[in-house]
């Protein structure tokens, strides 16, 4: 069997969770070191001996053996988890206890609890995302910094601070805790941010970002497996991710250039993911709760059901945007709504709607505000104004791919042939 390309991403989260349950959350660094070591050794063995039939089982067994070694060596030197201390301190019960803790169901539970531990409200949203990527997905500091265009040092600081907060609680988050609903919202938000960052930034220059989407989807699917946290909002969040992921193959053309939704080749959209997304969206409607994820998923579903951009039900889309803005007022959402207004009522109405966006100064450095104005001016036949807007947008580009896309729009507004 070929190992999955993301074997480490998948398994490191499980191993770190199991080990930190055994060593205690205040010994996270030890759990991480052991995990890293298990994996490096696995690769050394596999590269000569070949990959075993069941790589995850092989890794788990190796991790369990290493945990036992570490306990024999360090149990007198460290304060281990009080709840397990007695069982782990006695040679009679230690091996059996560790074996139990490496049971498949226990690990699944620990991994979920770790996800909730990472979303502690005393941490910023950015820190929660960074900590999740480190502890649940095995991202290195450099990989996280690369994905978020940050400096290694600032990511390292964020993670270290996060680990200190986790160490204070010593134990993994308990699902019996009254804080569960609030924590679940924070987990949703973290996975949503992870997915979004990946979705909008994935490109040939930054392949690591596509992994953010995969990882967010993988972790969200774990929430679906546990009845206590598989709420309507969890279903809606998963629906949203599937429906957006379905469009990924059409987001970038053969030359690596960004393709906006209206011009995407809809034949490239992944029908299986769309069907799965719609199914999850149906199931998300089981309660009375209407989250922002419900509305965003409904918007994505509406786009995915339209055969062409012109076939989009703009009335319904605007209705959905109005609900979304009520739930989560945001100038970016208002901008998307204004673009939908333009599609329905023409460019002049769209320009007016953009002008009426409240708190639009928050979008001062957002390239797609001037880019949208450029599109609408172009459609209204005012080429000169369109070009000025596109030039302003290109100057704000946050990635090479965005810059290339916006420079092509500048050329389009010059009347030069489009590449």
């Amino acid at each position, binding site marked *: 069997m070929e190992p999955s*390309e993301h074997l480490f991403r998948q398994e*490191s989260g499980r191993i770190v969770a199991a080990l930190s349950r055994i060593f205690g959350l205040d010994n996270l660094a030890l759990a991480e070191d052991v995990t890293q070591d298990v994996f*490096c050794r696995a690769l050394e063995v*596999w590269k*000569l001996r070949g990959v075993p039939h069941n790589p995850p089982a092989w890794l788990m067994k190796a991790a369990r053996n290493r945990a036992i070694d570490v306990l024999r060596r360090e149990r007198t030197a460290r304060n281990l988890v009080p709840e397990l201390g007695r069982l782990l301190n006695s040679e009679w019960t230690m091996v059996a206890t560790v074996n139990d803790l490496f049971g498949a169901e226990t690990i699944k539970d620990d991994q979920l609890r770790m996800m909730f531990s990472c979303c502690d409200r005393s941490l910023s949203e950015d820190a929660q995302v960074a900590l999740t990527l480190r502890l649940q997905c095995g991202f*290195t500091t*450099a*990989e996280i910094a690369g994905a978020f265009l940050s400096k290694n040092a600032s990511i390292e600081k964020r993670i270290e601070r996060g680990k200190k907060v986790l160490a204070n609680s010593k134990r993994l988050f308990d699902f019996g805790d009254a804080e569960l609903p609030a924590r679940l919202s924070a987990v949703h938000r973290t996975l949503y941010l992870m997915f979004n960052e990946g979705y909008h930034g994935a490109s040939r220059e930054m392949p690591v970002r596509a992994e953010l989407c995969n990882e967010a989807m993988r972790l969200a699917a774990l929430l679906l497996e546990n009845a206590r946290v598989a709420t309507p909002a969890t279903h809606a969040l998963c629906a949203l991710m599937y429906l957006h992921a379905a469009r990924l193959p059409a987001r970038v053309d053969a030359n690596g250039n960004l393709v906006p939704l209206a011009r995407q080749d809809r034949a490239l959209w992944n029908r299986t993911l769309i069907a799965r997304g719609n199914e999850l969206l149906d199931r998300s409607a089981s309660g009375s709760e209407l989250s922002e994820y419900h509305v965003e998923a409904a918007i994505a579903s509406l786009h995915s059901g339209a055969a062409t951009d012109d076939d989009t039900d703009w009335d319904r889309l605007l209705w959905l945007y109005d609900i979304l803005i009520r739930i989560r007022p945001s100038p970016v959402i208002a901008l998307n709504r204004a673009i939908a207004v333009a599609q329905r009522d023409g460019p002049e109405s769209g320009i007016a709607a953009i002008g009426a966006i409240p708190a639009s100064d928050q979008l001062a450095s957002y390239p797609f505000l001037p880019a949208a104005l450029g599109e609408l001016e172009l459609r209204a036949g005012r080429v000169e104004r369109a070009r000025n807007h596109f030039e302003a947008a290109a100057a704000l580009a946050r990635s090479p791919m965005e810059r290339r896309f916006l420079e092509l729009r500048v050329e389009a507004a010059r009347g030069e042939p489009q590449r």
Partner: protein
Amino acid sequence: MSEYVFLYRGGGRPESPAEGEKVMQKWIAWMQDLETNGHLKDRGQPLEGEGKVVRGKQRSITDGPYAESKDIVGGYTLIEAKDLVQAAELAGGCPIFDREGLVEVRPVMKM
């Protein structure tokens, strides 16, 4: 056909598991190639980086095997090849060279 031992020296540890997976994939492809072409006699074993060296009439024991990590043998494989020239050629496909390691090719002594 004669037998040769490939001794893998150095090559370092990967920076991240993601990178390690890529390196491993290359090794697996290379090994697969050797096997398909009938050159792989025994896949061999990877070796721990640590060890002891026992030397001299005194049997003095020191931590080993070498002070220089680039010289440490990290594993071995038993190969079948027509002659030393072909064996060396086969060794040239080893991914260890991407990571500044080397392959020592040694003929197994014949009876």
